[in-house]
Each structure stands twice: as structure tokens, then as C-alpha cells.
């Protein structure tokens, strides 16, 4: 059964900061309408999709694409300008944790307040109270005013209450991006529990690993419209490709974001594969990493140096090129070769990294002379344990003698 049906949902805002509405004044001033048309931004335009019961839908897209607006409309926080949505079942919206928390009240009092704001009845809160406190690991401090809590404690309390919200539909907005790793894992586990309990979940996230791991359907929202809808991997790849084309991989130094006019080489059909040769954009620390892609030469190329680099937050973590690894390369016009780069053990600290591929005409050539465009991809590296800090994980063992 379909729990959520969205039909041509649209939402616009007036640039001046006010939402257009029908008032007596507006009705009379038809003349001014034209001027007003120009100042309109469509946060969502004709968005339509459906979600089945028990499905986990991921919504990804750049900032400002309308993801949060969509969730707000489905949560009934704001009204659509046109179109409609049918939602079947109780809706729990987790757009932010700790909504309504008042610093003067104790943890206990805030559980009741926040729970009620989220839509729980008092009896429901009574029933779940002990579990909530335990999940948050705050039994000692539950009767202290939360203004004395650390930020971590507040987050744990807030998320804990949200975790016990028992609605048919759950709308989540990047809520999992809070807390430390241990807590995030706890939250991820709870989300999986909720999903397998048959609840319908819509999740907005910028974290591709989470989206890949937890969702069974994805929507890529861009400029208020659905750009792609499909399986998580398909949609994520499409999104990544878009981001790369728009030069929006922000973790690269600026010089890689310039356009190369008239490239002599095209790289295409990029595939990132993990240990089991499954395509993915998420890799585990120290696990196997393979990148394959095709190179098509548009003219005769006497010398080509394929460059492969990994960046994090603008810093070059590791870089290598074909001359070091396989020696000199040349291409005839229209020749197509497949490149395979395999890293046995990706010793990177968990985080988001940018993989950069480009081809230079010679070893010491400058970037402006690049034969190809700059191809950048964000990959996610995750770890099952704490690997410490920095960029690289060095396999090590410690002893106290």
C-alpha cells in the first residue's frame, strides 16, 4: 500500500522574504502582479513521487535544492503553493532534535515536553520513559535542569526521545549527523530497526554512505525538481556526476575547478568497486579499493600521463600517476583503453575524500595543459572502529613493556 503520494507539489517564495498570498490589496493590484512574478523563487516545482509502506526513501541533492522544504510540506509545517500530497498514517518529523527543549526544565520534564511536541500522548511517554532515559545513558542526571547538560548529553537526550517516536511515517532531516561515532552507530542501528518494523521512512542526507546503506529508493532533487529517481546507487552516481560537472566538489583546490577547453582525451564509465567487486562509493578503511574507467583519445597522443590523486579537505593525501606505475603511454586517435587502478588496502581514516583523475601530456606539464577535464568524485571512507585522527591510518600495534 502506498503510504505517501505526492502529486505536482510546488512551493514558491517571494524574493523579498514574504510569501505571496491573496489579500484584498493583491486582488486589486493586478498591475503589480507582473513585477511580483519576477521576484519569485520556486523552492519546489511539480514534484511527484510515491512511497510504499515500509520503504526507506532517500532524498539527496545540493544545498538549496528543496529537500528540507519538501520535508516541511510533508510534515505540514508549511503549506504547498499548489499540488497536493496524500499521507497515510501518523507522521513523525525529525527535522531537528530537541525541539522545544527549555533550559530551565529538567531532563525528565523536557522528555515529556519534547515527546508531546513530537506528538506522543502522555501515557505513551510514561510507558517509554525508562527506555528513553536508558538509551540516552542519562539516568543519573535526569532530574537536573538541562541548562547544566553538556551539548553531547543534550543531543543524546533529544535523539533518544525521537528514537522512541512510534509513528507510521518518519521524516528525517540529517539528524544522524550529530553526536560521536559510537552514538551515530547506535542511531543507525535504531533506524534500521524502525525500518524493518515496517515504518515508512523518508530521509534527507548529504552522507552518501548512510543513504546507500539504509535506503531502498532514492530521489535526487535539484533546483526544486526531481532530477533522477531510482535505486540508491544509480541516483548517487548521477548526483556525483552532476556535482563534478558543476565543479562543486568543494574539497578540491580551486585550480582543479577550471574548465579545460577542447580536451584531447575523454574519461568515462567510471566504476568504483569494493572487495566483492560490487560498485559502491563507500569503502571501509584498509579494505580493497578498485577504480576502473575508459580513456578515449580524440586525436593522436604521443605521450600521456594519467594522474590519480586523493584529496581530503583540500589537502593532497596521496597522488600517483601512470608513469610511475606502468611507464610511458601513448594513444592513437579514437583509441579506447580501459584503466584499472587497484589499491589492496585503502589506509585512510574514515571521512569524505575526493578522488581526482586527469591526464597530463607529460610528467612535468602544468595543469593548464591537461589533456582531459578534471574528473572528481567524492568517496566515503568508513570504519568499524576508531582509527584516530589525521588522514592516513598506519597499521600498528602497541605494547606496554
Amino acid at each position: 500500500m502506498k503510504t505517501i503520494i505526492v502529486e505536482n507539489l510546488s512551493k514558491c517564495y517571494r524574493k523579498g522574504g514574504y510569501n505571496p498570498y491573496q489579500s484584498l490589496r493583491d486582488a486589486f493590484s493586478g498591475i503589480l502582479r507582473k513585477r511580483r512574478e519576477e521576484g519569485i523563487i520556486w523552492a519546489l516545482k511539480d514534484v511527484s513521487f510515491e512511497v510504499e509502506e515500509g520503504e526507506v526513501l532517500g532524498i539527496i541533492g545540493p544545498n538549496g535544492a528543496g529537500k528540507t522544504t519538501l520535508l516541511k510540506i510533508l510534515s505540514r509545517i508549511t503549506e504547498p503553493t499548489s499540488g497536493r500530497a496524500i499521507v497515510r498514517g501518523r507522521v513523525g518529523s525529525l527535522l531537528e532534535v530537541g525541539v522545544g527543549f527549555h533550559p530551565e526544565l529538567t531532563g525528565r520534564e523536557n522528555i515529556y515536553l519534547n515527546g508531546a511536541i513530537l506528538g506522543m500522548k502522555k501515557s505513551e511517554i510514561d510507558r517509554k520513559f525508562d527506555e528513553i532515559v536508558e538509551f540516552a545513558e542519562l539516568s543519573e542526571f535526569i532530574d537536573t535542569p538541562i541548562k547544566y547538560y553538556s551539548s553531547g548529553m543534550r543531543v543524546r537526550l533529544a535523539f533518544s526521545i525521537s528514537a522512541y517516536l512510534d509513528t507510521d511515517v518518519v521524516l528525517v532531516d540529517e539528524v544522524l549527523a550529530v553526536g560521536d561515532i559510537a552514538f551515530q552507530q547506535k542511531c543507525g542501528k535504531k533506524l534500521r530497526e524502525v525500518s524493518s518494523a515496517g515504518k515508512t521512512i523518508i530521509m534527507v542526507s548529504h552522507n552518501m554512505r548512510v543513504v546507500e546503506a539504509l535506503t531502498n529508493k532514492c530521489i535526487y532533487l535539484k533546483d526544486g525538481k526531481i532530477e533522477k529517481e531510482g535505486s540508491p546507487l544509480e541516483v548517487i552516481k548521477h548526483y556525483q556526476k552532476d556535482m563534478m560537472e558543476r565543479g562543486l566538489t568543494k574539497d578540491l583546490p580551486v585550480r582543479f575547478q577550471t574548465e579545460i577547453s577542447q580536451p584531447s582525451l575523454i574519461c568515462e564509465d567510471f566504476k568504483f568497486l569494493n572487495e566483492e567487486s560490487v560498485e559502491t562509493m563507500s569503502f571501509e578503511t584498509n579494505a580493497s579499493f578498485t577504480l576502473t574507467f575508459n580513456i578515449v583519445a580524440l586525436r593522436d597522443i604521443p605521450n600521456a600521463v594519467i594522474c590519480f590523486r586523493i584529496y581530503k579537505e583540500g589537502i593532497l593525501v596521496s597522488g600517483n600517476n601512470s608513469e610511475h606505475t606502468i611507464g610511458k603511454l601513448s594513444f592513437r586517435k579514437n583509441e579506447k583503453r580501459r584503466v584499472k587502478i587497484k589499491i589492496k588496502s585503502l589506509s585512510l581514516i574514515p571521512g569524505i575524500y575526493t578522488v581526482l583523475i586527469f591526464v597530463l601530456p607529460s610528467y612535468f606539464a602544468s595543469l593548464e595543459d591537461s589533456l582531459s577535464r578534471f574528473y572528481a568524485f567524492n568517496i566515503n571512507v568508513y570504519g568499524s572502529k576508531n582509527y584516530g585522527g589525521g588522514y592516513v591510518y598506519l597499521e600498528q600495534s602497541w605494547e606496554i613493556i
Partner: protein
Amino acid sequence: MSRKILTILRNLYHIVVKREIIIKPSRGINWRALKEIKHYKDLLFFFIWKEFKVRYKQTLLGVAWAILRPVIQMLIFTLIFHKFAKIPSEGIPYPVYAYCGLLPWQLFSLGLGRASESVVGNASIITKVYFPRIILPLSYTLGGLIDFGLQFFVLIILMLIFGIKIGLSILFIPFFIILALLSSLSVGILFSALNVKFRDIRHLMPFLTQVWFFATPIVYSHEIIPEKFRLIMRINPMTGVVEGFRWSLLNKGSVDFQAILFSVIIVSFLIFAGLLYFSKVEREFADIV
């Protein structure tokens, strides 16, 4: 034919059992929100409780402030209006007269003041979660009943001190309390929405409240108002409320049916207008607050 019935039954199932909601642009008064209030009863009580608790937490005198306010006002007015200016009070001992008038007024004015800030003050909540927004001005207005209850207790003591006897008119007390509450609610709902759109409302409030205070025969009796101004006073909905409350409790003084009638009509109109305007602005709350 049977397929049509099945479709209707299936739709009904979705609406009733699965609580299906159709989200689309709305118009007019938000009746859906009013019907939903019963599902959010607990939240309403939590808001009332939170507001009351937070208001007096960390204050020195705590809840005593609720009682002190009208008592101090009564003392000041007794000194200036009664002792110095010798304002008449329809044959009732002035302190009781004034205090009795202050009670429904406080219920009204404080409810109005708090309700008008209710939406703007809770901006952080209404942009993150859904609940019928009308609960906000509703809870702040109803919360005033707690203060009112405490003040009423003091009023009983005052009445005992001055030996005021009650009569059958006391049966009308609930009516006037409800009328005071509804006046507060009607204006509160209207102003809570106005405050979202026009932020200068909060600067207007103290001024409005003060003028309204003196336009209502709370600390003076209508006896001092010349006949040609009486009509204006009657149109003031609070006149009917205050005088009616006073009459029903103290069983003395006049009951001006015309004023009460005006009250009821104007309050009813204001509730309707308030709900309409609130519903209209409610649609954009999350966008402009």
C-alpha cells in the same frame, strides 16, 4: 457499482483508520486544526504547565507574584482613586470593588499579552514540528486561569474581611468567567497572528492595554461617566465582563444588560475574525516568523 462502493469503503478506511491526510493549499478558517485539537490535548496541557512553571521558576517570590500583582494595584488605586480622588464605588467598599474588577481584567489583559507573543516566541518550535498552531494562543490564555484561581482565593478573603454577602447572582459567575476567557482568547488569537506579520504590535500592546484599562470601569464606577459617553463604554466588550463579574459575585451594583449583550456579540465576532485571520497567516507562519 460494487467497485464504486469498494473504492469509497477503501478511501474511508484510509481516512479513518490510517488517518489519511491530504496536504494541499487551504483557504478560509482552518477547521481541520480545530478538530485536531482533541488529538493534541496532552500537548495543550504541557504547554500550559511549561509556561506556568517557567514563568515562576528561579524567581524569589515564585507563584506569590501572581497574587501580589492585583493586590498591590488594588492598594495603589485605593489610595489615589478612593482616598484622594474620592471616586464612588456603587456603595461597595472600594478595595473589594477595585480588586473584584481587577480579576477578570487581569485574566483578559495578561492572556492577551502572553497570547500575542505566543506564536512569535515559539518560532523555533513551529518551524520544526507540526501541531495545530491555535494551541499556542489557546494555552497561554487558558494558563491565566491558574493565576486567576489564586487571585480568586484572595478575593474570597477580602470579601470575608469586608463582610460582603453573596446572593443568587453568584450562579452567573461561571458565565462571566467564561466570557472573560473568551474575550481574552478572541483578541489573543487575533493579535498572535498580527504580531507575526507586523512586529510593531508588541510595541502597541502596552499602550493598547493601558488605554483599554481606563476605558473599562474597573477601578471606578460608571456613575462618574456622563451619559453621553456611556454608550462608548458599553460598546467596550470588557465593560460587560467586568461589571457582570462584579455584580454576580458581590450581589450589589447594577447589571447593565446592554453592555453584556454588546460584550457577547462583539466577542463572538472577534472570535470569528480572529480565527479567520489566524488561519490565513498560519499558512505562512513557518515561512515568515
